[in-house]
């Protein structure tokens, strides 16, 4: 009968696009903000 595609960790009813937070083919949950590399102003790169 195939998989229950609503149980693969994707919010299929989301009004926004899924790809910007897509965690990848094996991820059970979307990316969190701290997982997403972002082009912040260079001054923020304090480390």
């Amino acid at each position, binding site marked *: *009968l*195939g*998989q*229950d*595609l*609503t149980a*693969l*960790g*994707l919010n*299929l009813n*989301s009004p926004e*696009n*899924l*790809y*910007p*937070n*897509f965690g*990848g*083919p*094996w*991820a059970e949950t979307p*990316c969190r903000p701290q997982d*997403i*590399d972002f*082009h912040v102003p260079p001054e923020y*790169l304090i480390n």
Partner: protein
Amino acid sequence: FDDPPGLLEKTEFLLREWISIHYSATAGRDPTRAFSIFVQQMNGHGILKTDDLITRFFRLSTQMCVDLCYRFLAEPASTPTLIRTKCFHTLDAFVRLIALLVKHSGDASNTNTKINLLNKVLGIVAGVLLQDHDNRLTEFQQLPYHRIFIMLFLELNTPEPILEAINYQVLTAFCHTLHILRPAKASGFAYAWLELVSHRVFIGRMLAITPQQKGWGMYAQLLIDLFKFLAPFLRNAELAKPVTLLYKGTLRVLLVLLHDFPEFLCDYHYGFCDVIPPNCIQMRNLILSAFPRNMRLPDPFTPNLKVDMLPEIAHAPRVLTNFASMIQPMSFKKDLDSYLKARAPVTFLSDLRSNLQVSNEPGMRYNIPLMNALVLYVGAQAINFIRNKGLTPNMSTIAHSSHMDIFQNLAVDLDTEGRYLFLNAIANQLRYPNSHTHYFSCTLLYLFAEANTEAIQEQITRVLLERLIVNRPHPWGLLITFIELIKNPTYKFWNHEFVHCAPEIEK
């Protein structure tokens, strides 16, 4: 071969030098200055003097980075996090060097130098990967290559004017490399490969940001590479765990595409269904369920739904595969066209099956892509033919035509396996409201009504039912066809023996 004496040592020295520069405080504050100092050092060692030396430098340094990773991976009692930190410390510096060389090579206007260098480096890394893959076999590790490709892709997709100007060529270079490294060629890299192809930045660039959908064709080709690799494993329903994982990963990617880029799946559905095994029902349903976001689909269960009154039902869907050219050989295509036009040569119908049959091996008897192309081609011609008479396709206008002769001949003349593939080719066109969905829905119902044996009616029912009993999603065209079949008394559906063959089937 024939690396100039001392090149290996020079390369190792320069790589170490670069890594320490890359992590030094100066680079943190002024990366470009640190880089220009290093380029002078490379020049000093004559590395940038000729194309050949640059190639050798990159191959040797790639090899060194990879060998280093294998050493870290082999260290006993090391944790995955520690291994990765050590590997990535070197790999990320190496990637930054490549990115800076690509960005600053040639002058700003001459983008060819940059792209040529990028293609060269991608080709070298791919070459080292394939050689490593063939040498180490099951000892092969994807880690270093995955990291190099994804970090280089992310570096070259930072929003900077120089890079934006060459972004389409960068995407093309990566798609070309990923095609060379497709899972059928580097199966040990398959999981990393799907990670790269479905990375959020890669999807965004290929399907959303690149203007005029110029990335769609390349992305479709990569998905076809994936389906072709999965096909033999999915064909046999029992899936080993490694295949199940890759299959579930593929479903996740397709769900993202269905949700965010349904028009992409609409445009390329034909090419995808050509390579997805016929028994892979849910994945195929997922692709066929896509419909344009600006379209509102009427509820298929609406009583007395007048499908032929829907505005979109007359529009032909975009099919970006040249399916007509897939009807080979030319002589067969010529006879087909002549039969469609003038119902001659009469032998065309009786020869039809032999043109489609390629072996006597059960389960492998027919040329599926040819069957799919023939059905869609004849159907598309039929729609035009009916339209040119100022009519619209419906249960009477589709009848008594050379097109329907062909379909009825196939329904009667093919064996069970062949007819299953034939009916699948029709059912693959039952999607969102468009002229193909409408015509093929009528055709399927017509074949059911005109069938001269109950076996054909049972098989039509089976083909529809197996697509309906799997978990969602279900294509709109499939639902309205089956509802019509079971509700419209014309088809006397419930009178058939096979409908009552088992209580759960009847239910």
